């Protein structure tokens, strides 16, 4: 791996690691990543305890000044430790690293509500299972497009979580992009996983296979004229946009891969924003934005901007670099406590205030909802709600004075 040898021992990665700051036993990214790897290459890299406690949030890697692929070296370390796993854990991880199976039959998760099964599988009995949010049919009228024919096309990437549990968010994103004036089609048609879950659990070879199959599928379904491939999940975004080419040996896709909220900020017409902003959806209520750890590899602040642009009343970023959910991490019994501790500051920050959370990952949403007691959904969902409100509002009285910008957007 390029730069695996670059480590300066500066410890900046340690200072960025959320697990290190909650779990006293965790040796930290520098020890588990580059230091282990250096010994490993020399044949003296004994496996270390706690390597599996790494969430694969990759904040360490993003912080490293010399580009050491810290988290990916830890993934190698996890891979080397795989043979030590016990049977029930192996079964569990096989399921958790195939979210595409769960996405096909989300009811499967109900079985784990049975405590004995969960116990045997070392599934957390603490963390909530995601509830299934199937979209109602979206009314045609609310999806009216801004521009006429020959509209530019985007592909919307359907991730396992949204396919299985939150088609609402998915359809909201689709509808919004149609409102922005784009033709949208969903890829891949069948349920598949980009490899993110397997990579996080150290199943590097499996991740490579899954990614390869998914890449084939997407390439086959792209029509060639898409402006972008839009993602709704920061983890899949990172995996497809970065890891596929950097670590999993795949070629870059022929289109840029862009998170929905970034795309919205770039491509929604000005009138769209003034319309939603004018609707003033939920006055007096707070909007907390949380860019998930993997989303931070692109930086944070875009979600915050999105909420402000949409005219949300009081916007505040959650002071969390990672909420602890980290894909399937929080669902594993041995991690439940750490996951909870990592996300806990969110509850303290929200502290009884009313409001909702905008977050760019479904699993993080489940986790945050449970921790903070506030509804947490994908920004596409919230934006769509705001749009619907603005539409029903503008159907009766016109927009209030003072918000009288010309509407060149979706009405």
């Amino acid at each position, binding site marked *: 791996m390029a730069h695996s040898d670059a480590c*300066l*021992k500066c410890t900046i990665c340690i200072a960025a690691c959320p697990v290190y700051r909650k779990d006293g036993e965790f040796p930290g990214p520098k020890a588990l990543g580059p*230091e282990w790897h250096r010994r490993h290459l020399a044949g003296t890299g004994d496996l270390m305890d706690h390597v599996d406690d790494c969430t694969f949030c990759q904040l360490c890697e993003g912080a490293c000044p010399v580009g050491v692929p810290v988290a990916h070296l830890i993934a190698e370390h996890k891979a080397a430790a795989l043979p030590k796993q016990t049977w029930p854990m192996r079964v569990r991880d096989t399921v958790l690293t195939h979210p595409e199976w769960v996405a096909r039959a989300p009811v499967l998760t109900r079985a784990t509500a049975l405590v004995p099964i969960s116990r045997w599988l070392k599934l957390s009995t603490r963390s909530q299972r995601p509830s299934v949010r199937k979209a109602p049919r979206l009314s045609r009228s609310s999806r009216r497009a801004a521009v006429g024919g020959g509209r530019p096309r985007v592909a919307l990437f359907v991730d396992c979580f949204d396919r299985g549990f939150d088609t609402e968010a998915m359809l909201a994103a689709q509808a919004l992009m149609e409102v922005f004036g784009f033709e949208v089609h969903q890829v891949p048609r069948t349920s598949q996983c980009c490899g993110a879950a397997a990579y996080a659990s150290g199943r590097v070879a499996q991740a490579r296979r899954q990614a390869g199959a998914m890449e084939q599928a997407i390439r086959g379904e792209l029509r060639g004229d898409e402006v972008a491939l839009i993602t709704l999940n920061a983890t899949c975004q990172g995996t497809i946009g970065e890891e596929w080419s950097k670590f999993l040996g795949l070629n870059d896709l022929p289109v840029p891969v862009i998170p929905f909220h970034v795309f919205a900020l770039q491509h929604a017409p000005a009138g769209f924003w003034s319309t939603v902003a004018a609707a003033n959806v939920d006055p007096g209520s707070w909007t907390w934005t949380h860019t998930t750890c993997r989303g931070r590899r692109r930086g944070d602040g875009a979600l915050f901007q999105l909420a402000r642009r949409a005219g949300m009343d009081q916007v505040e970023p959650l002071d969390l670099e990672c909420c602890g959910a980290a894909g399937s991490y929080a669902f594993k019994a041995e991690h439940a406590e750490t996951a909870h501790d990592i996300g806990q500051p969110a509850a303290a920050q929200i502290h009884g205030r009313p409001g909702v959370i905008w977050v760019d990952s479904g699993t993080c949403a489940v986790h945050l909802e449970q921790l903070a007691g506030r509804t947490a959904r994908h920004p596409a969902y919230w934006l769509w709600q705001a749009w619907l409100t603005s539409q029903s509002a503008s159907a009766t009285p016109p927009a209030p004075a003072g918000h009288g910008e010309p509407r060149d957007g979706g009405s």
Partner: protein
Amino acid sequence: MVVVVGAGATGLGVAWDLSLRGIAVTVIEQGDIAHGTSGRFHGLLHSGARYAVRDPDAARECIEENRILRRIAAGAIESVGGYFVKTPASPDDYGARWLAAMDAVGIPVEPVSREALRTAVPELHPDVKGGYWVPDGVIHGFPLLFRLQKAIEARGGRVQHHTRLVEVAVDHGSVCRVRVSSASGSEWIACDALVNAAGPWAGKVSELFDDPLTMRLSRGLMIIFAERKTAHVVNRLAPPGDGDILVPHDRVTIWGTTDEPTASPAADPPQRSETQKLLSLGRDLFPSMEQWRALRAFSGVRPLYQPESAADPRHITRDFTVIDHGRRGGPAGVVSVVGGKWVTFRLMAEKAADAVTAYLGLGATSATAETPLPPLPTPGEDARTPWLCECEQVGERDLAAWPGATLAEWRTRTWFSMGPCQGTFCLHRVANRRIAATNLAALDAEEVALREEREQGMQGALWGDNAREWALSQAVRRQTLGERT
């Protein structure tokens, strides 16, 4: 009693050989163990393949000693094997000549396809054309020398370091005593024979008695990379030249070397221009070498000897010479041993000890080829103390295994400060373990010396991330720790 000058591989080898023959020895060393070339070499356990064409005698000795060392020094040898790699620049006819010579010398060799090579050493250039496997290996020089020292001491021999030989007294044509000087003054030591195993200083030592040697010193340069970049030794299949061997050495990789005549036995620190040139020579073998994280650069001086020889040091034999000075008109009882390789130290020692034994009129023969060197005691595990040096995982126990050692001695014995941070994060921690045994002023001086030694090596390879490491160490030293020197 025999005095041996030099605690490098050769000197300690001679002392070990004599000890096994039941002869009392005292080793005199001006610096620490491995102060000379034995602490500044490439780490390669030669198979002899490099010398097969031009220097078959040296090659033969290499392969024989290579086999013996694997037997007697297990633990200090990595049997990793090596490849001779054909690049587009390799001379067409060289391969055939080399194979014939390998056959004549008797060094095992196996052809390896380009694909197999690239699998075994993924960092190799995609254009390499295949090559051959040979039984090269790796020598861990420092631990091996400390094993020799302990073995000698266990048999009643003495190893006095930081002590210089300054005078040789001759009585009726035979050596009878030597004067040595150290920080605690100077003293005379009576002796029946004297062995000059002073490596690159052998010429200087020979000036102390009446039969000077003309050494053909040659300086070689090496670059250490921070990580093990190859699992096997890699040589360029071409007549020996500069920049053609890469040796994996435990957690690091060493690239070398050069060959340039020098007058100075003390290895002059590498200049950046020299290391840059050496680095660029690696491109046809390892295209990404310039991106590898460099750790430091160092140089060593080959104690070559060949009275009548060509100007190019590459053409001077790597074979060794034992000179019985009494036989050529010098003082009787003085034996010099010069030339050779680390790999052949045991054989050199055996021959030198033979000369001494013959002079003393004793019948004992060498037993070193059959006597395994006892391993160093491993410090006990202690899960309840933190690492002091995290890069190389050195803890309190490792230091405790060398009581009374100075910081510099702890460095080569425990390997602390040898990893990527080069002492930035561990020197003060280790110094704290030493304060009880010394005073503050002395400790400060030891710290400064160690910092300087580390920095000098870093400066020779100061580019890319290593330059950033250097900047970090400056900031930590001066701003965080408040050091002013």
